[in-house]
């Protein structure tokens, strides 16, 4: 999984039938310090996340698991909203 900040939302009217009703969010991955790390991506939301929140997401075929038994065509999904993270001092 990777840390990211939700920086936007995508609206799509015409899409795969299995994606209907699922929110698409734009993520900026961040490193342990909270700084930008890598390029932005679009991920499906499975936890009710919103813009400005820190979240963590999975990549690959596991990204479809939160929506089981619907077989959703996706390669990234938000699986948790981060309350806070603590680093070693």
């Amino acid at each position, binding site marked *: *999984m990777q840390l990211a900040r939700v920086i936007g939302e995508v609206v799509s009217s015409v899409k795969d039938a299995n994606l209907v009703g699922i929110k698409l969010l734009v993520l900026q991955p961040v490193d342990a310090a909270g700084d930008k790390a*890598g390029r932005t991506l679009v991920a499906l939301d499975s936890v009710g996340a919103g813009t400005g929140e820190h979240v*963590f997401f999975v990549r690959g075929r596991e990204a479809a698991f939160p929506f089981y038994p619907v077989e959703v065509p996706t390669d990234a999904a938000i699986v948790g909203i*981060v309350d806070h993270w603590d*680093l*070693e001092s």
Partner: protein
Amino acid sequence: MPPLLASWITGISSPDADMQICRVVGTVVSTQKNRKLEGAKLLLVQPLTLDGAARGVALIAIDSVGAGVGERVLVVIEGKAAGDALGKKAAAVDAAVIGIIDQLDYQDEA
């Protein structure tokens, strides 16, 4: 997970980002998360080179062995293996700490 995706996550350019040596650098607290992740401990782990230098971006892995901050650990970056470590089928996880490293010996071939 295809190797290319795994390398994207870790920032490691090796064609096979298999099991990694990482250091636990932090803990992550998440109240609202996927049902299958309930009860799982989330650790922030920093991939390391063999000589202990940080490489790539830190990632979040579930802990199945009771690792703590500061320890060197073994991390699998692959969905099936991570799900097995969590003990749940079809769980939305792609990385797991599966061992704590006591000692690492290697010969530098460079």
